């Protein structure tokens, strides 16, 4: 139990420490810790978590630490994981604020952020791609070449949602609700499609 709590703390400490750029920047880090390293969630469960996080208020990191923590070690797990997640913020924000008010110079910080931004974009793209492959080919998405095995409902939903987002810039929550409604209805009416 203690070891599990320590593991939770350390994993989310890394998430909190490395997720620079806010919001979606944390997603690939959470995926790495929770799915690849510790196997606390399957990729499908992780995708559910991102969906839930998108539809509820609060930062994705806190949402994830609570969700994973409670499933692995109950309420203590949720609290320990959340603490691990915010501890680096507390320390680094205070340090940066101190230097900023002392020197009023953000040049080095800006320089670092400039080269971090492309990295964050690439990491998000990679996490997004793994979710896309999951919804098109299911859990064992290695056989990408098998075009005939593609899930047609997911493909239509993805393409139309993407075009809608690019053209009209609707809010993500609205997009999720509409895809959930129409796709859900199709899956319920034709269960063999899923």
């Amino acid at each position, binding site marked *: 139990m203690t070891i599990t709590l320590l593991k939770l703390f350390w994993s989310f400490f*890394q998430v909190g420490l*490395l*997720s*620079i*750029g*806010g*919001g*979606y920047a*944390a997603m690939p880090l959470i995926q*790495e810790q929770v799915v690849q390293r510790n196997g606390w969630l399957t990729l499908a469960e992780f995708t559910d978590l991102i*969906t*839930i996080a998108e*539809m*509820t*208020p*609060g*930062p*994705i*990191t*806190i949402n994830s630490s*609570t969700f994973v923590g*409670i*499933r692995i070690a109950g*309420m203590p797990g*949720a609290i320990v994981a959340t603490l691990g997640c*915010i501890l*680096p*913020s507390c320390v*680094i*924000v205070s340090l940066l*604020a101190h230097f900023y008010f002392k020197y009023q110079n*953000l*040049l080095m*910080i*800006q*320089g*670092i952020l400039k*080269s*971090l931004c492309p*990295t964050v*974009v*690439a*990491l*998000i793209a990679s996490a*997004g791609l793994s979710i896309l492959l999951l*919804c098109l080919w299911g859990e064992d998405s290695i056989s990408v070449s098998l075009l005939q095995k593609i899930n047609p409902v997911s493909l239509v*939903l*993805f393409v139309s*949602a*993407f075009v809608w987002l*690019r053209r009209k810039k609707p809010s*993500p*929550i609205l*997009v*999720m609700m509409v895809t959930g*409604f129409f*796709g*859900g209805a199709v899956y*319920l009416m034709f269960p063999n499609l*899923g």
Partner: protein
Amino acid sequence: MKTPLKVYWKLFRSTFHLSAFTFGGGFVIVPLMKKKFVDELGWMKEDEMLNFAALAQSSPGATSVNVSILVGYRIAGVPGAAVAILGTILPPLILLSMISMFYQWFRENLVIAAVLKAMQAGIAAVIADIAVNMGRNVTREERLFPWIMMIAIFIAVHFFQVNVLYLILASILVGILRTLWREKRGNTL
């Protein structure tokens, strides 16, 4: 100067309320905080809030937690920061605990399972859209360097499963070296 208890309570209530009703996360909370703490309560000036927002975004972790730390500290020191953090993390902590406890039961429900499955495609589209927007933003001023970084990192993480930790540390190092090199040449960014 001792901070009256009323200030802590107000700080807690404000951050709790903001966190509970801010959907979409991240930067959305900054204008709302500005409205609350600058316009309504008059606890700080607008340019302070903007500096806090920039600092919060430059720091690791959730932007809303970071802004709360700075605002709380500015208003009532370390205890203020603690109160602001508590107010910010309690709503998602409570809500997600409940969702997490019911998740298995929730997931076995046929209707919810179908809706969640369909939403996978939706979230994939949302993330793809965000990646495209962010990719455009980072290639606005400069082209070659961000593209090389993006492609290299993408290949490293997606095809070679390189640990994200090393990739981020490497990018920070590149950023430091580039900044030093530019400063040496006398260029500004």
